[in-house]
């Protein structure tokens, strides 16, 4: 199981009341496979972290895990072992901006 932490607006959209969610991702666990699994579990999240068609990350969204910025890692690259082992959560972060 992979642990995912979503920003508050997406937790409210998906009616997630806990701080993080877990999703089952078949091997090889990649960022794309993780987001696929997340959107399968929570269809209302389609299009909110990445474009629904191009699958390109939305500009104000960043991905982090284990203190590393994974935003520009290829979506098909394997996720860090600590994430797939459930030791570290995969963080979806909205840029700090706005009012």
């Amino acid at each position, binding site marked *: 199981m992979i642990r995912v932490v979503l*920003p*508050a*607006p*997406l937790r*409210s*959209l998906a009616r997630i009341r806990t701080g993080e969610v877990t999703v089952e991702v078949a091997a090889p666990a990649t960022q794309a496979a993780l987001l696929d699994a997340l959107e399968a579990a929570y*269809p*209302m999240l*389609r*299009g*909110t*972290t990445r474009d*629904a*068609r191009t699958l390109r990350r*939305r500009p*104000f*969204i960043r991905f982090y895990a284990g203190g590393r910025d994974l935003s520009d890692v290829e979506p098909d690259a394997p996720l860090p072992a600590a994430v797939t082992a459930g030791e570290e959560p995969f963080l979806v972060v*909205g*840029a700090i*901006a*706005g009012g």
Partner: protein
Amino acid sequence: MSGVRVLVGTKKGAFVLTSDGKRQSWRVEGPHFGGWEIYHLKGSPADPNRIYASQSSGWFGQVVQRSDDGGATWEAVGNEFVYDGVPGTHQWYDGSPHPWEFKRVWHFEPALDDPDQVYAGVEDAALFRSTDGGKSWRELSGLRGHGSGPNWQPGAGGMGLHTILLDPTRPERLHIAISAAGVFRTDDGGATWAPKNRGLKSEYIPDPNAEVGHCVHRIACHPERPDVLFMQKHWDVMRSDDGGDSWREVSGNLPTDFGFPIDVHAHEPETVYVVPITSDSLHYPPEGKLRVYRSRSGGEEWEPLTRGLPQADCYVNVLRDAMAVDVLDPCGIYFGTTGGQVYGSADSGDSWTPIVHDLPAVYSVEVQTLP
């Protein structure tokens, strides 16, 4: 006893205000979708329990919410708005070509007779339609493709398709309006479109009488007289008596003819409401006095409606989609401000009461008259 439900979209969520037919005491529910921008909510005329809401965010994009129980509970439906074919370019503010990019839904217009059919006016300007209750969306691309699309330019607030008028007597006829392109009409259900801006004069564009390029802020009509259209343009209040084929100015004695919303009384097709705003650079009421102006003669002669509205130190704006009328008798008028107030009048505008004072900036106000 009949009642009303006022649907309020704000910068930080949606609110539902309900009252009985007296429209004196109100229940306020919300925020729904707290923290998200709600550009617009609108209920289906065919099923008042069916409501569509445009929920968006600069971070997370567009979400479409649907309620089947009058706004008590909501379900996210389809949010894929894909332009038909190769989208091409429109003009950017400096006149350079700019690719068409979907940003958000500005306005939903549910069909008159089918709760599952709904039109969406979006930024960058285009018209989409769903026939499955918002699950999937398809562009009516004849609008962007009719010829002038590459010449459209955004207004200051973006290039949004903000008004969709359905004709109850001719189902194949729709009028839409875009900032800052103007009015367009289809007579074949959206397959082909023509600009309908003859008579508009806009001194702030290179050709003041151009066929397209006018910053139309809002158009409105009475459902029983769909050929009579009223328009609040960037500057000028206009009227058409021939379904938009030609327009004439009816600003008359307004203190300023700049403004955003315009609406028509539910039972008096010649009674029209606007909210004059100082100027294009001063988006607040003249003299700090919030006044709705009413014409009972279809324009030209206007009277200020002030009772219950702040008449000193008021510097809010009223946005284009933030005024609506109910169909009770006497007709109720409602509008919301960027200061978070929603005002209501249960006597055709003679007097006003704030229903709520302190919401986030109000983007849109719609009213449902309930049986």
